[in-house]
């Protein structure tokens, strides 16, 4: 989850880099996208070692064989349109040209309330902004933790 820092986030000689607005926005988008994920770990099935001549398959692999065959015939049966992800489906609906109300127009508008700020380390209300990344912090202790952990490491 903690990504390697790249060029845009490198600490210059003796001074901290300031992330530009576009980078901050990308970072936020990535954080929000992560909250949509079904899993963070790899599929246990895909992490199995490839079966070699010496690989001992678990006993229930036999019962799983016919399942796999069934899946294949089903795959043939399902035409292309049964295999589209959300983004593709949304684009195909072409909603921006369709009559409202629709999926897009039903989205709740931005809030009219002022934003509230919380320390990105401990979660308590914060009064300070990290000059480097725009993250919030509440105390010098949390700022320290923030700089050592996420401040520049979360950047694309």
């Amino acid at each position, binding site marked *: 989850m903690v990504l390697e820092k790249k060029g845009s986030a490198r600490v210059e000689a003796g001074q901290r880099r300031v992330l530009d607005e576009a980078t901050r926005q990308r970072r936020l988008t990535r954080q929000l996208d992560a909250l949509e994920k079904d899993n963070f770990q790899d599929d246990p099935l895909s992490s199995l070692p490839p079966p070699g001549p010496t690989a001992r398959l678990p006993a229930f692999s036999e019962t799983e064989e016919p399942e796999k065959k069934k899946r294949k015939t089903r795959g043939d049966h399902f035409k292309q349109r049964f295999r589209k992800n959300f983004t593709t489906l949304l684009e*195909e609906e072409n909603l921006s040209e369709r009559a409202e109300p629709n999926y897009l127009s039903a989205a709740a508008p*931005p809030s009219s309330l002022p934003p509230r700020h919380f320390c990105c380390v401990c*979660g308590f209300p914060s009064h300070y902004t990290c000059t480097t990344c725009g993250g919030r912090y509440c105390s010098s202790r949390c700022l320290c933790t923030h700089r050592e952990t996420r401040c520049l490491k979360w950047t694309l």
Partner: protein
Amino acid sequence: MATLVLDNGACTAKIGYSHEAVSIIPNCQFRSKTSRLKTFTANQIDEIKDPSGLFFILPFQKGYLVNWDVQRKVWDHLFGKEMFKVDFSDTSIIITEPYFNFSSIQESMTEILFEEYQFQSVLRINAGSLSAHHYFSSQPSELCCLLVDSGFSFTHIAPYCRSKKMKEGIRRVNVGGKLLTNHLKEIISYRQLHVMDETHVINQVKEDVCYVSQHFYKDMKVSQMKGEENTVVRDYVLPDFSSIRKGFCKPPDEMVFSGKYKTGEQILRLANERFAVPEMLFHPSDIGLQETGIPEAIVDSIQSLPEEMQAHFYQNVVLTGGNTLFSGFRERLEAELRSLAPAHLPVSVLQPQNPISYSWEGGKLLAHSPDYDELIVTRDDYEENGHFICEEKFDM
């Protein structure tokens, strides 16, 4: 002819015959670390002895059905001999879909139900419409209701005037139970223990310890205090799936505020996490999501509706979906609505006994109502007119 009612949610399927009781079953497949070659479907999760690191395969994405392979596997299991033993030659189905469901998903749905499973008739309907039917059946004198359906993928605000859905007033807040669990996982992993792979366990933590605060900044202060003055903090004992099958909160009088427990259990200490997580439902902007929370979205919805109806909506706000089960949810929503609504209008937020199965119960009632035959599309209709007849009858 039997009628099967299926509220096909992105996380759980609420399913049962209209003459029986509801069952709530995971609408997904799982793989576990301990038996990696096997895929578990729906309630087979109960066979998994060690669900740590449980891997989820969900048919829905952002609340919409996209993975038909998985959905069919789950339905095969639900309809099959192990569970509902559906006799398709003598069964009709009521099945739910999200608001503004995409047209290609609707077509696939119709096709699969008639052609793959051979149901005798189909009624595709929004879960909210079933909830509205439920509400108006139990409150025959009310003209309007405003549903708040806060589920796994998102939260919808949906106004109904009698059986009519007021589409222009529907609002979607992109905060649901999945986002809350993922956010809780994220902050626990950053602050104390790596739990990013433990969706199943942390979801249970969320259900066991999170609550909706009535005084947010006051609770923030309390949860910062030391020792016994901190009445918010809880220690949660994580399951190890051998001696501890299910996680639980240490009773407050057994809490050790400084130092370690002698018992050697794995503990999560939760303070502001308990109420800051459900707070996303009220203030999505707290995590940078630029949209209104539920109370403001309700006001935005009601203001888009004819003025003479507005008073009725404020008085009949009905809560459905799992997130409304957070302790304090109803009270907080009512208080916030009270302060946002015009002062002369009474505000009343109602929490049904079981907000998760409320729409399923509505489907059950609908199956026995005299209007039912008018609403459905039969096999003959479909064979004669194809998708056209469904577009005519079903208004998503």
